[in-house]
Each structure stands twice: as C-alpha cells, then as structure tokens.
C-alpha cells in the first residue's frame, strides 16, 4: 500500500465494481471479479444478480468464495441449476449482461490467452485452459478484463486465443458473428483501456491518480494509443475500503499486494 492509503488492487476492485449497474446480471469469476461484484452489491447495485458457471444464480455468499463452486454460493442463492442450463438458457440465451475475464496474456485487441505459453503441442507453460471463458467472451453482452500491467501479460499478440477480443486474426467480432460486444474495458493496476470503436485496438482511456502515461505504456507490448481526452479515476472512498477490508476479504486472500 502506497502513500495514498489504498492499494492498487483495492482500486482495481473499486473501478471494476463501478462498472456494474444496478439490476444487471453478472457472470462472476473468483478473486478480484468476485470482490468487485460483491462490493457493487453492497454499495450502488443492491439488485445485481451474481451468476457463477457452477450453477448458482443470485448468490449472496456469506464468506469469500475461494472457488467458483464454493458451497457458500449455494446457501441462500435464488436458484441452483445444471451447468447445461447455465450455458444454454442463461449465457447462450443472451441473459448475461456482464462477464469478467482475465488471463495470462491479453493482446492489443483484447484477445485473451489462458491456454498455453509457447506452442500448443509443445508448451513452455501449460495454463488451465478456457473453462467457461471462451463462451463468456462470445456471449456476454459486454466483458470486463481485469489484470495488472506488464509487457509479459500484455504482448502485441497472444500465443493462443482462448477468449476472443475485438479482432481475432484480422477479423472483427461482427464478421465472426459473435453476439456480445466483447471487452469494453481492461481494468489494469494503473489505468483503464478501452477499444477504439473503429479498429478495436485497446487504447488508454483513463489514468489512476498519480500515474503517468509512460508507466502504462511501459506495461504494454505494443505502441499504446491514448484517447483524445484522458479520464480520471476517483480513488476508493472510505466506505468502499471498509467493505473490501472488513467485510469482503478480511484475510486479504485476494487483496494482498
């Protein structure tokens, strides 16, 4: 934690939470996205519906879920359904407004690799693979990518496209027939990127307090463009920090660093 009184991870969780509107339906992942969704639920979006790919709909976890199939997601949820229903009746049906994604590599167009570093047939590092990410990237009405910056994580081109972004191997989402809008924000630890409406390339749209453009550029493996006017980001408020630290992740399971 810096001089500012909050950590960059805490700010990322707040920024992600603020992207969610009340009554939206969110496909939640574990870790920071889960923190962000529960923070939004406890602040400006009490009607947010949290859906986990495990089949828990309208979850209200009493403890921090450490896996996407945590029993705390079931107890007191609105509905538990089969995974066939999750993917067919909720996701493919178009009912999911927001999906959270992350990965080992994120490229210039918001394509994500969570499959493999190196060649698929001879991987240097074998990652877990898609899980539900590929279809969330296709079907969620919009997705939010959350990741700290580093040139290793943000190469110009990913080794493997697990989850499609705004442009895949030269073809746009529209050409490829994808229903959702794809990644509309990349929430990093220094600022926020968003796709250029024409090219689909990720450009800097806002800086966190105290961060210079050069710091963001240094964390990205392509010549990062900036929006005409850069937005600013409000630091976490005291209530946001209290909820994150005292209610949502008191053991700093995900808020470490």
């Amino acid at each position, binding site marked *: 934690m810096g001089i500012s009184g909050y950590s960059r991870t805490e700010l990322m969780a707040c920024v992600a939470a603020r992207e969610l509107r009340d009554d939206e339906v969110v496909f939640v992942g574990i870790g920071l996205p889960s923190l962000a969704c529960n923070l939004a639920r406890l602040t400006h979006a009490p009607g947010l519906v949290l859906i986990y790919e495990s089949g828990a709909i309208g979850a209200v976890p009493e403890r921090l879920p450490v*896996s996407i199939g945590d029993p705390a997601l079931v107890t007191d949820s609105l509905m538990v359904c089969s995974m066939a229903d999750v993917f067919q009746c909720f996701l493919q049906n178009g009912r999911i407004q927001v999906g959270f994604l992350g990965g080992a590599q994120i490229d210039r167009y918001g394509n994500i690799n969570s499959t493999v570093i190196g060649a698929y047939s001879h991987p240097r590092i*074998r*990652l877990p*693979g898609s*899980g539900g990410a590929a279809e969330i990237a*296709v079907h969620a009405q919009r997705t939010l990518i959350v990741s700290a910056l580093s040139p290793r994580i943000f190469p110009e081109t990913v080794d493997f496209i697990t989850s499609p972004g705004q442009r895949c191997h030269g073809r746009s989402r529209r050409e490829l027939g994808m229903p959702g809008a794809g990644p509309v924000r990349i929430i990093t630890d220094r600022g926020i990127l968003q796709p250029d409406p024409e090219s689909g390339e990720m450009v800097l749209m806002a800086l966190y307090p105290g961060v210079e453009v050069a710091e963001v550029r240094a964390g990205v493996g392509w010549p990062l463009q900036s929006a005409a006017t850069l937005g600013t980001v409000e630091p976490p408020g005291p209530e946001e920090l209290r909820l994150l630290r005292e209610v949502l992740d008191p053991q700093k399971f995900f808020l470490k660093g």
Partner: protein
Amino acid sequence: MKSKLVSMSEAIASHVHDGDIVVIEGFTHLISFAAAHEIIRQRRRNLTLCRLTPDLIYDQMIAAGCATKLVFSWAGNPGAGSLHAFRRAVEGQGPDLEIEEYSHFGMVARFSAGAARLPFWPLRNYMGTDLPTVNPAIKSVTCPYTGEVLATVPALNPDVTIVHAQRADEQGNAQIWGLMGVQKEAAFASDRVVVVVEQLVDESVIRADPNRTLIPGMIVDAVVVEPWGAHPSYAQGYYDRDNDFYVAWEAISRDVGRMDAYLDEYVYGVRNRAEYLAKMPGTAERLRAKERVCAGVNYGY
C-alpha cells in the same frame, strides 16, 4: 429387486476396466475421491479420463499412472495453483498424456449429446478462438432454417461414470442438492453407472420428494456407501470443502517425490476410505456442515 449395494473395491473391480473411458464428475461439489483412490489402488491402466475440471482427483490419477488420455476444459487447482502432474505430462517432463480440450460449454454439450444418445450437439460458440484449430473434433453444422453455421461437438459416451450423491436407496435412485454440475448428463451418457453416497436411505425417503431425484436407479449398476467419500471436495449439507488441502496440494504436487509419498501414504497405504479418514483426525470436526435445513413442500393432492 436385488440390492445393488457393493463395497467400493467390488464396484471398481466390476465396473472400471483397463482402457475404459472413465468419468468421475462433480463441479467442485461431490467429487468422488474415494472412487479415484480405489482405481489407483487397483492399478487401472490406459484410462481415458474425462471431466470439465480435472482437479486434484485426476492429477492424482495421472501421477499414479492410470491415464493415457485426458479430456477436459479447465485444468487447474481452483484458487490455489496448478495441477502439476498434469503440467509435467503436458510440458514434456512426465509420462505421455494425450489431451483433448474443450471449453466448459463444449464439455457440457458433449455430455448432453451423450445423455440424449445423439451423435452431436450444436452450440453457438468458438468463433475467434483457437480451440478448433487444436481440436479437430470441434466441427460445424448449418442450420436448415436460417443457414447459420453453428459449432458442434461430438457426443461423449463414457464406459463408466461415477457419481457422488448425498443420498440414494439400494437401487441407486439418487438425490442431489446444491451444485449439480453435469452429473445427470454424465450418468445418462454412460454405459455403466456407479453411485457413491454419503447416506443410504430407504426408498420411502426418495419417494417422499421425487423432484429431488437426479439419477434414477434404472440406469445405475452399483451403489456404494462411502461417508466423506468426496473429501477434499464437499457434500452440501454434510461437510465443507477442505480448502486447506487444496492449498497444500500446490506444494505437494509440485514435487514428484512429495506427490509419490502422498499417494503411498494416503492411497496405496490404506485399504479403504475409513483408513484414509483415520489418518486425518479432526477432519470431520473441522469440516462438518452446520444445520441450514429448508422446509418441505406438500406433494398431496
């Protein structure tokens, strides 16, 4: 009707053979580690293991040399790290392991096709991803009404599926609540089905609440009673997930020697689930579920 109750060792001896396509499902919830350990003890070989999330259970089976092929969609240790036996195999530092990889939706669709005994399942997916380029089993079909090209996956019909459930009767009529994953689809897709339960109940308990039955006895070949059989996974209403164990696994599985020692002590070194549990005193007290019993509903007319 003849009871289908057998011991775990009998169930595995009768229903899991070398070379089989084996599914032990359960999405985080109700994963039958007890069955996997018995398969390891009985030294089954050349298995094709299929699961959405290989999890620790298949990592252990891969480490033990049971598997020659893995069919999956997410191979990690949820919240804790990697599956290192899997990674060693795939990264060329362990025994060969063929992989066939989908996304969760793709695996769910494969089981759905298998359960319906259709040869394929259509889904709107995989545009833009590289998954079809490394998995030629992902194909496409053209809608006869709209002309839209949709992705397809082939049916998955395992030789045997092992389902852990909260309770069943002696015929295998099994009831599950909490997360259901693809347990129903996997069971219906399978040639043989083994149901492992926390609790054996009288048929009247099943019949009192028939909407809770997920798997009917008519598709079940064997019933095994194995309390705590899902540990370190969990059974809603019975015991919590052993998250500490999942975290500890990261360090164990990273080291081939420690992993072998683990298997020696907790799998090969015990004869059954009771001996496994006896090695971890305090586990039941630590993980036993609190009471959050819902009200019943009226089935009268």
